[in-house]
Each structure stands twice: as C-alpha cells, then as structure tokens.
C-alpha cells in the first residue's frame, strides 16, 4: 500500500507539474481539503487538461515523481482517457480528464482558486462534479460540502 498523501507529496506534485508545465487542478474532496474543508479522503484527484501536449508533459512529470508507467499506459495518458487510476507510484493518484458536471478545463481554470501555489477547482465546480457523478458517497457528503461552500464564500481571503 502506498504511503499517505501529505503536504510534502502535494508539494512534489505542484513543483513537478510546474516544472513540466502541466495544466491541472486539484478536484474532488482533496481539492476541497486544500480550500480548508475539514474532512478525510483516501487519494488525490487531479483534473488535467485534455490534449496530447498536456498529456506528454504530465507523463514526464509523473515519471519524475516516481510513477512506474509502461509505455502503453503513458500513451493512454497522452491520449487523455477520461479517467486514469494510478496505484503504481509513491502515492495514489486519480487523473480525471473529463469530470462529470464540468464543461471544459478552460471553464474550470478561469474559476480556479490558488492556495499556497496549488491550483484548485472552485468549490462550485467540486460540488457540480459530485452532483453529476451522483454516487452514494457523494450524496452523503454533499450537504456538508455545500455548507462549507457558503462558509468559504463568506470568509475567503
């Protein structure tokens, strides 16, 4: 089992992705936690811009981080499959290229929030994607997440 994702790992992602110029956003509960949402999660979810150029730099960054990707796997990431689950690296990562409920990466990028250099989806996008995914675990978490959105909008720096 991979080690826990902690601040140091988040920094490694941020720094490696910045070095390689990867266009990405933290999304899902890991994104909400970066915004201040007090809860727990098991892995980090990254929303990546779809396209060969971004996929190519993402593969380079992931390999630098220590993810053991075969060439066919790397090709799939370059092509931008909608969802890739990675459990072959120093921590668990889910790559999402087309999250439910969000039209385009550019839309989400325009609404993004920066937290200590981490690019994070706006709470509205995090909520929208969970509403659209319509999973049992999302139904459980949405009322509190919506309450956090209200709190965050009132108190954001």
């Amino acid at each position, binding site marked *: *089992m991979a080690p826990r994702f902690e*601040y140091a790992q988040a920094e490694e992602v941020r720094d490696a992705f910045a070095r390689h110029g990867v266009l990405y956003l933290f999304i899902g509960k890991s994104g909400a*936690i970066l915004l201040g949402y*007090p809860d727990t999660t098991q892995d980090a979810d990254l929303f990546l811009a779809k396209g060969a150029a971004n996929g190519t730099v993402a593969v380079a960054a992931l390999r630098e981080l220590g993810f053991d990707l075969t060439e066919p796997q790397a090709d799939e990431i370059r092509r931008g499959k*909608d969802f890739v689950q990675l459990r072959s690296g120093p921590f668990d990562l889910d790559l999402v290229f087309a999250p439910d409920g969000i039209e385009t990466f550019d839309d989400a990028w325009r609404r993004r929030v920066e937290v200590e250099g981490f690019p994070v989806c706006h709470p509205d996008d995090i909520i929208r994607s969970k509403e659209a995914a319509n999973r049992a*675990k999302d139904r459980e978490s949405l009322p509190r997440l919506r309450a956090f959105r209200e709190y965050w909008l009132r108190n954001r720096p």
Partner: protein
Amino acid sequence: METRQPDDRERREWEAEFEAASRRPLRTRLRYAFIHTYKPVLDDATYRSFDTMAQYREWCARELPSWLGYGPAV
C-alpha cells in the same frame, strides 16, 4: 441531486468545524486529511483507465462492493 437538509444544530456544528480548520495551517490540515485504508477491488490493480467517465461509473457499479459508496445513489 436531492440530498438531505441539515438541521440548525448540525449547521452550527459544521460552522464550528470550518472555523477550527481555518485556524490550522494547510500543512497540518493535510497531515490529518489523507487516510489510507485498503479498498477491495479498487486497490487491487496498480493501473486502470477508462475511455469515458460513463464507463468508469459502470465499472464501479458492477465491480465494487456497494458499501464503498462508488455506485449510483438510489
């Protein structure tokens, strides 16, 4: 998606939790936010990919134990 409405007491408790979290540095928040427990099936492969989110959702509903919560809300 229809979800339950929290009552006033629950809202106040959540607000207090949000306030407390806002006083902690990000590094501290992340230290306690990410937990790792084994999730059957989901954690049994080092790599998975899906052409579409719909295919991923269908796979989750079909292959994962329902108690993990990855299936559709009913």
